[in-house]
């Protein structure tokens, strides 16, 4: 139980990553695959945030007197997540644009049926 409460965020983050990877591998519909990629992204962002998280910690700004450095969360992972979110949005937008174009060309989003480029 102690283990669970200590590592619950990591377990949650990696569960999301694996769920997302499973969706990417197993689903046939392109939109679902894109959703899977997005879930992977979310999992990674949670994982990065967890790296710097301290229970009951506060923002790393010396706003109150008596606030010590050990009560502050690590700001670097938050900066990383901000960047990762932006990159994720760019990939997501591009993927959805391509999905629209793909549907216009083939009339389907089923990836198993789209195989002109094989061999």
């Amino acid at each position, binding site marked *: 139980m102690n283990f669970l409460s200590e590592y619950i965020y990591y377990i949650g983050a990696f569960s999301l990553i694996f769920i997302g990877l499973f969706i990417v591998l197993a689903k046939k519909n392109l939109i679902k695959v894109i959703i899977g990629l997005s879930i992977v992204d979310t999992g990674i962002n949670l994982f*990065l945030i967890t790296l710097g998280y301290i229970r009951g910690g506060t923002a790393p700004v010396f706003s109150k007197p008596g606030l010590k450095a050990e009560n502050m969360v690590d700001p670097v992972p938050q900066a990383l997540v901000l960047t990762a979110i932006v990159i994720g949005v760019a990939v997501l937008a*591009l993927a959805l644009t391509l999905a629209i174009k793909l549907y216009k060309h083939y009339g389907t989003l089923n990836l198993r049926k789209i195989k002109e480029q094989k061999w």
Partner: protein
Amino acid sequence: MVNPILLIVIPLGLAFVVPLFRFISKKIEKFIPFFALLANLIISLTLFPHVLEKPIHVSIGGFLPPLGINLVAGPLGILFAMLIALVGFLVSIYAFAYIKEKDQEKYHILYLLLLTGATGVVLTGDIFNLFVFFEILCISSYSLVAYFGDKPGIESAVKYLIQGAVGSSLVLIGIGLLYGQFGTLNMADIASNIHSVHSISVFIPLVLLITGFGVEAAIFPLNAWLPDAHSSAPSSISAILSGIAIEVGLYAIVRVVFTLFGASSILTFLLFLGVITLLIGELCAFNQENIKRMLAYSSIGQIGLIVFALSIGSLSGINGGLFQLVSHTLSKALLFLAAGYMIFRSGSMNISSFEGMGKKMPYTSFAFTIGAFSIVGLPPFIGFPGKFMILKAALFEQDILFTILVFLILLATIIEGAYFFRVVQTIYFKGEKSTPGQEREIAPLSVLIPVFIFVGLIVVIGIYPKLITEILESSASELLNRADYIKNILP
């Protein structure tokens, strides 16, 4: 001395002002990549002698490492930056005549961003910054593959995007794990502490990073996207993807394995992976009817050879691998540009439609032939010293394993020769001797100039390889002496 940050800033800044130039004149926008990359080429050439003496390192915003983001312009970084600027510059000349569809400004923006990303990856000294530049490179190449918006382009862009996005996610997990253990993102700082923790907890990030970057570098079994993407992209972009994008992926792997982790024990695994990639690539290329697919599979094979050479792990092996990398960049870019123009004229990617091209388009066919001979490794072209150095380095190990692998590599080279000579034969000796009504046509200057500069470089470096061996040797020793790399950044 010029600041190496300009190598990133100039193309990045100019990429976003391309639409503004549209208000002045619509004809001006295609010259922007030309000038940006010309500037980059000049800057990297002026930096080159300084870098050979001592690597330049720049802390951005005045934060000294390990705190801020830093750029490290070592011999290896400048070698790649020069290659990127050179190939990008020549391909931007090619694009003057080649890109004539609507929305030209989008092509030029994405093209500049792709090269910005590539230059950033090779110059940065911060692992997360490397990831960001890598994503800039990847996202712009996904969209450039789909630039024409036709059926094959969109389909392969989707494939490329899905695989690339999973790969980038793996890289990000690896970076997160490293940050969790070391509390720093500076590559030199991580490298200096890497042996202080238990080996399994650095093994997982290493595997994640190699797999993630391996998708972009198209190492077997992560290469499924490459033949589709390279064959359905516009030819100028295929040249950039084959000549630069996969090499940059390879650079990331090499940087991670040698400098960041100093992991010499994984090299044996990469050795086998390289030879398998080589054999798979060449065997698949042999069977292709589509010329661009054939060239794409041949790129996979060449990447396998480079991975093999770099994983020998000795100074001469890395030297040969880097030489082969330069040779592949120049020759494959030339092949895609020449083949691209022939496809543009004949309207078909099928090899059989190239019949009689030797009569119709003598200059382009001649350039294609030079490129093909160089890839196969015939003297006096640049491919010969590269392959020779690799084989010499492998046999120098005096191990029965290396002898077997060298045998496999030579076998793959024979296959490579077989399919390239088949194309050359089709170009010159097949088809009717004289077809009436078909005039000889000379390609426009914007095609001939870059193609013949590539031919010139291939022949000159092939005859006199000492021209580049100095920078290759210092790059190879930069990779092997990670202590020097660390000491240079963290005094």
